[in-house]
């Protein structure tokens, strides 16, 4: 930790620095803009890997911490990562270069603004994952909105303006109420610093009345549930995805939706465990409805991109279920599934985007028998579909399996319902694949379509390798998550609810707070 004191700040703001470089270019220099954006995002990825190298898997506290006063006494610039946020940061820095690469040809107008928006989103997303101050978190959380709004609204498809507005207004409704809750929490705890608030709640220095806790939980949860999106708050998602350009969908599905699940896991559950336990059955029911409903609706879509969008509703329902099963295994699975979903759904959107670049449509009936003209692209598409439907040895399997067995420990019925989602995912993905790729070529135009170009092959091969790697080498990831996952469960314990002396959780958090005081 001592060796790289400002690494997190660098990782967070490096994309913003490249924005400055882009601003200096003339508007016509499209080629150089693409190159600079790609180089900057690759450099960012490389720098972020330093985090993995310096990360100590056995350390329960936040690492690479930075702590500076910002506004007044209560608001700090406080950054840090643990096993949960670490890989989400890497996921962000990994998907951004691919998003830039997939927009190489398809974005021809307003190139500068497009890449600037993508890089600003990257900064904001990383900022969300590494913020340990509620105020700072909120700032980054809101900052993700506007660039995505522009990406959907300017470079999107026909109904882009409607979709962009819907996306922003939905998210904002949740986040404004969360702001009220954050301020309310500050009035109770006297600080915006997340570890400090948690320490006070755990040690019993600050007590929340059950009703207050429920209201605060509700405000936080609503904001994150809209972002996930949890049924029935999901209606913005299909529109946003269908209308967004490919890169927008990749970032939106790949990373932005994880803000919701990450927020639930990081803030909702540890801060308000009583309310989380009380509400868990209701939330689990919503999650299961989401899993099944999302899958069923995906099955009947005739628009390929909309289909992929609904798979997100289904898959992220599973993640929420895993979190609210409150077992180490299921939470670990949920975290791993967040990464998997980012990679698999990101890859699905990339592949669908490649089809769109060729035919400028997402209609499934416009395709058919595509394996004949483009065998390479379609093979990779199949591989990605299999990853998304959780075939063993591929990444999706590990996450789903962990969630299901973790859930099964205490809640047999939940797990049984959730398993149906896994079955249905095979139905909609394979059926869609069959209609798109197999059989005779049904539309004459498709006969002459070119197969994957070198650029596209780079994207697809990278994705396939990561999918395979995450399926086989999952212990590399889960071992680094384990301590933090247990930490979340420890953080959920409160003195009055634990029958034995609450030494373990209290000391961990208090030690962390003290440690930081000493560092100052």
């Amino acid at each position, binding site marked *: 930790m001592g060796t790289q004191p400002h690494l997190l700040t660098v990782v967070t703001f490096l994309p913003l620095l490249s924005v400055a470089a882009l601003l200096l270019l003339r508007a016509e220099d499209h080629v150089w803009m693409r190159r600079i954006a790609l180089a900057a995002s690759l450099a960012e990825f490389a720098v972020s890997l330093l985090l993995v190298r310096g990360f100590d898997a056995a350390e329960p506290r936040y690492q690479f911490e930075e702590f500076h006063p910002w*506004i*007044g006494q209560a608001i700090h610039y406080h950054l840090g990562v643990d096993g949960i946020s670490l890989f989400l940061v890497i996921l962000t820095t990994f998907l951004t270069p691919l998003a830039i690469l997939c927009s190489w040809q398809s974005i021809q107008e307003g190139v500068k603004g497009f890449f600037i928006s993508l890089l600003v989103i990257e900064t904001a997303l990383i900022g969300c994952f590494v913020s340990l101050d509620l105020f700072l978190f909120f700032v980054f959380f809101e900052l993700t909105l506007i660039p995505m709004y522009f990406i959907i609204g300017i470079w999107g498809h026909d109904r*882009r*303006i409607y979709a962009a507005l819907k996306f*922003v207004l939905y998210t*904002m*409704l949740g986040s404004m*109420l969360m702001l*009220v809750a954050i301020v309310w929490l500050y009035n109770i705890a006297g600080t915006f610093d997340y570890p400090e608030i948690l320490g006070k709640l755990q040690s019993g220095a600050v007590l929340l009345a059950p009703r207050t806790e429920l209201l605060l939980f509700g405000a936080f949860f609503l904001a994150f549930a809209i972002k996930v999106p949890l049924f029935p708050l999901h209606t913005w998602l299909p529109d946003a995805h269908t209308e967004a350009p490919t890169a927008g969908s990749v970032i939106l599905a790949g990373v932005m939706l994880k803000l919701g699940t990450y927020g639930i896991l990081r803030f909702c559950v540890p801060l308000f465990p009583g309310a989380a336990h009380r509400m868990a059955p209701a939330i689990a029911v919503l999650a299961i409805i989401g899993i099944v409903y999302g899958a069923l609706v995906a099955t009947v879509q005739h628009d390929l991109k909309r289909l992929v969008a609904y798979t997100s509703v289904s898959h992220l329902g599973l993640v929420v279920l895993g979190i609210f099963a409150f077992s180490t295994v299921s939470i670990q699975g949920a975290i791993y599934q967040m990464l998997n979903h980012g990679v698999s759904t990101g890859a699905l959107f990339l592949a669908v985007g490649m089809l769109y670049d060729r035919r400028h449509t997402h209609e499934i009936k416009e395709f058919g028998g595509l394996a004949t003209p483009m065998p390479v692209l379609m093979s990779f598409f199949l591989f990605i579909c299999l990853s998304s439907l959780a075939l063993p040895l591929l990444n999706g399997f590990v996450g789903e399996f962990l969630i299901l067995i973790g859930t099964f420990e205490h809640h047999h019925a939940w797990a049984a319902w959730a398993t149906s989602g896994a079955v249905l995912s095979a139905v909609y993905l394979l059926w869609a694949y069959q209609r798109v790729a197999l059989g005779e070529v049904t539309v004459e135009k498709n006969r002459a379509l070119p197969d994957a170009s070198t650029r596209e092959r780079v994207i697809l091969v990278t994705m396939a390798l990561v999918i395979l790697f995450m399926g086989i080498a999952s212990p590399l990831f889960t071992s680094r998550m384990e301590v933090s996952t247990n930490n979340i469960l420890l953080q959920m314990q409160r003195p009055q609810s634990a029958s034995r002396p609450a030494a373990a959780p209290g000391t961990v958090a208090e030690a962390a707070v003290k440690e930081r005081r000493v560092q100052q």
Partner: protein
Amino acid sequence: MISLAAEQHANLHRLAPELHLCLFGILVMIVDPFVRPQNRRVLGWLGFIGAILAIFPAIHVAMENRGMAYNNLINTDSFSIFMHVVIIGTAALVILGSLDYLDGEGLQRGEYYALVLFAAAGMGILAGANELVTAFIGLEMSSISTYVLAGFRRRSPASNEASLKYFLLGSFATAFFLYGIAMVYGATGTTQIDRVQAALEDALNAQGHLPPLAILGLGLMFVGLGFKVVVAPFQIYGPDVYEGAPTPVTALLASAPKAATFALMIRIFYVSFGSAAGFWFWAIWICAVLSMFIGNLAALVQTNVKRMLAYSSIAHAGYILVAFAASTVFGITAVLFYLAAYVLMKAGAFLVVAHLGQKGEKRLEIQDYAGLGSKQPVLAACFSLFMLSLLGLPATAGFLGKFLAFQAALDGRDPRFVWLVVIAAINSVIGAYYYLRVIVAMYFWKPNKDYVPAKVAPALTAALFVAAAGTLYLGIFPARVLGFAKAAADSLLLR
């Protein structure tokens, strides 16, 4: 004799910002006849220099000569000085932004700048008054100047209508204020703000309740002042006046007088009637909720950007009232910070509208903003920043203002405030729709081919740059200004 001279000197010193403004206003009028019509821009620069120079004595007083002036009529405490800097700064910004507008409209005249300076002087007195009749004089000085300014486009019916409406309703409201003063005087035997406080506290101790006459007086004053800050239900005239007035004047009207009148409201409500907080709390609560809903819902359906911004300023007065209702030092701090943030973003936004209106203010509809992002990227980015700040997006001044308002309101953990803040939060989302719609037009719509806005002239560029930089500065590094606001609030309540 020596002490008398020293006192005179201190008095003059403490009134120096107003004296500077008036002197330069008169100077502009005197020079006017000697300047050829085509060179009248010089008068604008003279006015601008006058405004800038008036800020320095304000800061100077802040450093070494705080205190009462003219037998406790004027109170130059940190609070007053904070407001002076905000008001005079806004006046300077508006003058800078008006230079090219007046050229374009063929209205380049000395009176304009002189009136802006006189209005600023009136507002300065308003912010520093420690005596109700003095406050009334300040109110009249600023109001009469702005009545004239609102009608400055003499050939435009809308401008004349705005001026007349503002004048008639404004005088009506002023009468309410004056009646209120009379009642308070009747109840307490004084018009001095701090003595009213002492008299009311004595009455409370002696009789166990406040004199009804004083409460009635407070109510009447609230009507008069509520009119000036344009909060619902006294908002009816606002949008018409804001829409009809020349746009740079609207930039002034929507920002500086609001700030100054809020300053006086704080003095009256917090200091004089601090002991009556129970009485006025619900009045403020209801006005805040009404202002937010009426302002935001009416702004939703506007297609004219100028009018939309007028309604949005009603909504913002509502947010300010949320912090105002808190009746704590923190509440004042939040109001002051909000006002500083608000004048920057609102004046900035109206100056952009003034530029895009072009000759005769014909281009005010949202369709005229279509494709501005590709026609004038820098101007569009600037306007987007003001919109996002008004919306309350983090990293802008508007967000921090709103955040502090929420924080101040929830500070006392009083359940009455929770609903107020939740309503404010929901209103922020309603507001998001119409602010974003302007951005939609600028960036997402196809450019309007037959309309090419003129290039932005250097003076206006400078004004917009200052407003935009200030909006970002207050949003990202608010600590310094927040410190000043806190000191100002302390100077008012902790004696």
